[in-house]
């Protein structure tokens, strides 16, 4: 697998491209943006990768931002929150980021269907995995965090 520095660059480029191409958003790097705190509702889109490399790619945003993502993708009114659409949109964003990251890996590797988790004060763990990198972005004051975790000795 590539070095952490290379993965950092790849994830930054991939994430920025996904948000710009799909939503028209110019997200900015933000070292200052922390993880979602335990008091605000947030959502996680996640895909796993198996095969020659095993791990996961997650996209964490506030619920507020997830609603905006869905509105941008569906071309809908952000005040009309349709839960299925919000989960669908976030899952697809995670799918695109994960899928493009998967394309940087040595085959054979397979990508899972995306899953979406939502709530307050939760954390997501992949048993047996270690965090490779978390990359932080910001859009209109809202944090966007993309994390790569790896499982097993193939990393």
């Amino acid at each position, binding site marked *: 697998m590539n070095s952490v520095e290379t993965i950092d660059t790849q994830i930054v480029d991939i994430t920025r*491209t*996904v948000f*710009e*191409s*799909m939503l028209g958003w110019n997200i900015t790097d933000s070292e200052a943006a922390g993880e979602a705190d335990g008091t605000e509702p947030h959502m996680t889109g996640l895909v796993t990768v198996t095969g020659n490399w095993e791990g996961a790619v997650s996209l964490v945003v506030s619920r507020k931002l997830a609603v905006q993502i*869905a509105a941008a*993708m*569906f*071309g809908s009114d952000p005040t009309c929150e349709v839960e*299925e*659409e919000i989960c*669908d*949109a976030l*899952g*697809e964003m995670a*799918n*695109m980021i*994960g*899928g*493009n990251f*998967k*394309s940087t890996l040595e*085959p*054979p590797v397979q*990508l*899972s*269907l995306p899953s979406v988790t939502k709530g307050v004060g939760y954390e997501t763990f992949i048993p047996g995995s270690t965090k490779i990198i978390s990359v932080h972005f910001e859009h209109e004051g809202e944090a966007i965090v993309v994390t790569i975790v790896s499982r097993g000795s193939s990393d």
Partner: protein
Amino acid sequence: MNILVVDDSKAMRMIVMRTLRQAGYGDHTMVEAGNGVEALESIKAGPPDLILCDWNMPEMNGIELLKNLRGSGNEVPFGFVTSEGNPQMKNAATEAGALFMITKPFTVDAFKDALSTVVVC
């Protein structure tokens, strides 16, 4: 002309159809399906002139759908729209009978380039 858009994400189906309109294909009829099984049912009901299909879907994925179609003698123009565009997958898609692969995230120009040899605006 009927264009069948197959993706398990409703959001992505909407974006694909929006991009088709932006690329100049708005006059064509667009039909949606959520996976390969639904796509086959839609094809039985009304044969499309072009299929744009995601790769990774539940029930029946895109490559399974394509192989099913070609195996039954259906030569409908077929292209993938997927987040996974590595060379191995592109080779597999081509060998199975796909005409092109558009990688997500995509641009309007990517659609124009891919479809220009297949569909008349």
